[in-house]
């Protein structure tokens, strides 16, 4: 099979799985997850083959695997649909395939496959457990098959986005993911909070998507093409950079970049539009991992990286990008410090880490941003799946004690899980260390260090210090989380009875932890290895840019900074929370942080309240009920009068009597008189037909001849 064909095929298995499950196998849980995991495995296999083949190609950036066919006719030309594997998409495909496969496998265990049906579970609510021989045991998810169908579609969206060779199909994948995130965040639609979160996520990302679509339309109108190959060619880029738009003094490239970047702000939950992401924790944990690590938010960053040649053309846009990234990084990190929900901490951490990547892109650190995207995907998937495992273990405890008031996600209800769930603990620790940037061994260290080094080397001091502080906070809240969750003594009865999760959940954790550590090594700067091994990642991804970025020389300041902030943050986190037993003892429960800087409240006051007021009071009360209804009420009686007049003097006598009853009478009369013709004797019919044919045919013949 040619590589191009294989690339075409990669996104297909999950969508086929979606249809198979929805149409055929939704009654059988085992068949559904077999289909879904099998599809993910096929995609994974294809992705790995493509990745390995991509590695074997010299100058992949100049000669990518590409194939395209005509799709939508636009006048004389066609919008094309196609696939493209260059270094960037190859590396993205790599981590997406791994994370997706792991998450699929994990989902089997997470949804309690093999457990009995719940005693009083309903579709749309999380399973409440079943009673078997007097023991409470976890029960299987009622909408098990539906879940696999949805994440299949989700994976299809992401894979489509990654392999597409143009902005349009990328946007299609983007929107499929938007739909799936809505479906999956609201998976337990019986919960009001989940419903609201789904709507919030959908609406918020929609804001970004609208701008992105504007950007795509603008891009198409300026360049006449949406294919990456065309729009990233020298002449097009040059033209884009030189066309002024008159909007804030931006060039066309700047405006397009800005519009596309707003799409990313929505999708990757950057500062003004970040509010949906923490609420998205209402979905099942594999979904959180899917959204936060493997697919959706990565897609946002991927889009910016993909569009980097355009975005980087305008300094102003770059500044905005850098500012928003850096601000988001530190802003979300501060919030994460004060959260008690294990998944929420990770959610804010995701926002913060995405800020890192965006900031890195804003200062032009293309390779570093990509590197951090990949490492982050691995360790954040690991952390989310780990937290899901913890929650699962805690739910076990909750089922054991039967005290459903205890929130299994609150870290202050945990503690001492290290011994109960060793595999989860060790993998979570690896993930946490990678997130904090624990020096030298973890992947997170290398990627984060590269961002800091880039910022320092190019003189973006403000960005550098902001990110450094954010990195310190990252290490701090990560250690806080680990300490509260795993160390010390169990703080509740439930935590004492927590239980290690099944192999379907722990195996993905172990696999991902290998990557969380190991993937950093492909991007080690050459000074650490003494030049023995080249910085493969830099070499591979860096070839994407037209002017190859120089690898940075060794510099002590950023290295020392990352060492200090990582180790310092970890140490501070551990020592601060070593003995904390309850939220009251937590000194960092500052209201402003706890309440996420009141952004939701602000939005509530600035947007939602006025909107509600506008619709409820202005439109509904004044305009609709007052003005329009008033006019209508005037019309009502008038029309009624005219209508009754017409009815009495026209409708009843003329229409009903004459036309209605009259035509019926006539038809009845004809029917009655024609009835003898219908004898039921086929030969008579035929005879009659022929005679009529003769008469008509003869008449026509002679008339036409005459």
């Amino acid at each position, binding site marked *: 099979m040619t590589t191009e064909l294989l690339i075409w095929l990669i996104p297909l298995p999950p969508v086929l799985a979606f249809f198979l499950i929805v149409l055929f196998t939704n009654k059988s849980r085992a068949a559904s997850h077999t289909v879904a995991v099998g599809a993910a495995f096929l995609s994974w296999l294809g992705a790995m083959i493509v990745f390995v083949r991509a590695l074997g190609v010299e100058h992949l950036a100049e000669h990518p695997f590409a194939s395209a066919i005509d799709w939508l006719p636009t006048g004389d030309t066609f919008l094309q649909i196609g696939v493209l594997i260059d270094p960037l998409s190859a590396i993205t495909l790599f981590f997406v395939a791994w994370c997706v496969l792991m998450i699929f496998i994990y989902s089997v265990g997470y949804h309690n496959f093999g457990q009995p049906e719940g005693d009083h579970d309903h579709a749309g609510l999380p399973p409440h457990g079943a009673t078997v021989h007097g023991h409470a045991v976890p029960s299987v998810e009622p909408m098990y098959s539906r879940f696999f169908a949805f994440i299949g579609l989700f994976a299809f969206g992401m894979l489509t986005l990654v392999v597409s060779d143009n902005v349009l199909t990328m946007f299609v994948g983007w929107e499929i993911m938007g739909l799936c995130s809505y479906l999956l965040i609201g998976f337990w639609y019986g919960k009001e909070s989940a419903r609201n979160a789904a709507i919030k996520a959908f609406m918020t990302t929609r804001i970004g998507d609208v701008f992105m679509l504007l950007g795509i339309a603008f891009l198409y109108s300026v360049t006449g093409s949406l294919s990456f190959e065309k729009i990233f060619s020298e002449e097009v880029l040059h033209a884009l950079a030189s066309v002024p738009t008159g909007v804030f003094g931006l060039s066309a490239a700047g405006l397009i970049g800005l519009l596309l970047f707003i799409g990313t702000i929505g999708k990757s939950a950057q500062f003004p539009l970040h509010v949906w992401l923490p609420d998205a924790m209402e979905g099942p944990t594999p979904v959180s991992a899917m959204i936060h690590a493997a697919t959706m938010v990565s897609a946002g960053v991927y889009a910016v990286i993909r569009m980097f040649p355009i975005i980087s053309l305008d300094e102003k846009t770059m500044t905005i990008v850098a500012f928003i990234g850096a601000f988001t990084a530190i802003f979300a990190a501060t919030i994460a410090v004060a959260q008690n929900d294990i998944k929420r901490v990770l959610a804010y951490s995701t926002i913060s880490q995405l800020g890192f990547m965006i900031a890195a892109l804003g200062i032009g650190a293309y390779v570093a941003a990509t590197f951090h995207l990949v490492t982050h995907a691995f360790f954040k998937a690991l952390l989310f799946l780990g937290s899901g495992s913890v929650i699962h273990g805690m739910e076990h405890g909750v089922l054991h004690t039967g005290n459903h008031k205890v929130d299994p996600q609150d870290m202050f209800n945990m503690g001492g899980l290290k011994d109960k769930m060793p595999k989860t603990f060790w993998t979570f620790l690896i993930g946490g260390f990678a997130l904090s940037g624990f020096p030298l061994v973890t992947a997170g260290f290398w990627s984060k260090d590269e961002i800091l080094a880039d910022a320092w080397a190019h003189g973006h001091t403000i960005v550098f210090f902001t990110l450094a502080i954010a990195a310190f906070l990252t290490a701090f809240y990560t250690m806080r989380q680990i300490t509260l969750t795993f160390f010390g003594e169990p703080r509740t009865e439930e935590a004492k009875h927590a239980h290690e999760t099944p192999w379907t959940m722990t195996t993905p954790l172990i696999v991902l932890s290998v990557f969380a550590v190991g993937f950093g090594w492909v991007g080690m700067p050459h000074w650490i290895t003494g030049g023995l091994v080249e910085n493969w990642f830099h070499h591979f991804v860096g070839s994407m840019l037209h002017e190859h970025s120089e690898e940075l020389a060794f510099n002590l300041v950023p290295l020392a900074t990352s060492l200090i902030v990582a180790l310092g943050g970890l140490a501070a986190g551990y020592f601060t929370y070593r003995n904390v037993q309850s939220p009251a003892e937590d000194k960092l429960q500052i209201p402003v942080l706890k309440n996420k800087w009141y952004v939701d409240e602000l939005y509530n006051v600035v947007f939602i309240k006025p909107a509600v007021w506008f619709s409820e009071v202005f439109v509904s009360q004044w305009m609709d009920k007052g003005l329009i209804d008033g006019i209508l009420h005037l019309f009502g009686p008038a029309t009624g009068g005219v209508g009754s007049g017409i009815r009495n003097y026209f409708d009843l006598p003329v229409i009903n009597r004459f036309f209605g009853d009259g035509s019926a009478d006539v038809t009845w009369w004809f029917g009655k008189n024609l009835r003898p013709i*219908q*004898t*039921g*004797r*086929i*030969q008579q019919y*035929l*005879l009659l037909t*022929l005679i009529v044919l003769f008469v008509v045919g003869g008449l026509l013949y002679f008339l036409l001849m005459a």
Partner: protein
Amino acid sequence: MIPQSWYLILAAALFGIGMFGVLTRRNMIAILLGVELMLNAVNINLVSFWRYSDVLNMSGQVFSVIVFAVTAAEVSVGLALVISAYRRRNTVIANDLDMLKF
């Protein structure tokens, strides 16, 4: 040589005879016999048109082969219907099966 008109007139006559049978016979099987005659008349036409135009163009023969197939289908279903009607109503007289009127 025989002019084509002979064949066409023969076919027309056979068609007329068949039609007479269809229109006048009381027995349903006899009606179907008449239909057979009409179909044969059509086939004579088809084959003669093949012979009297371009013989390398086989359309006439092809269509007569298809008429064979259609005839076989028509007869099998038609006779099955006759037998079925005979089982239910005990008659094969077409005019006795006039339940489909008013």
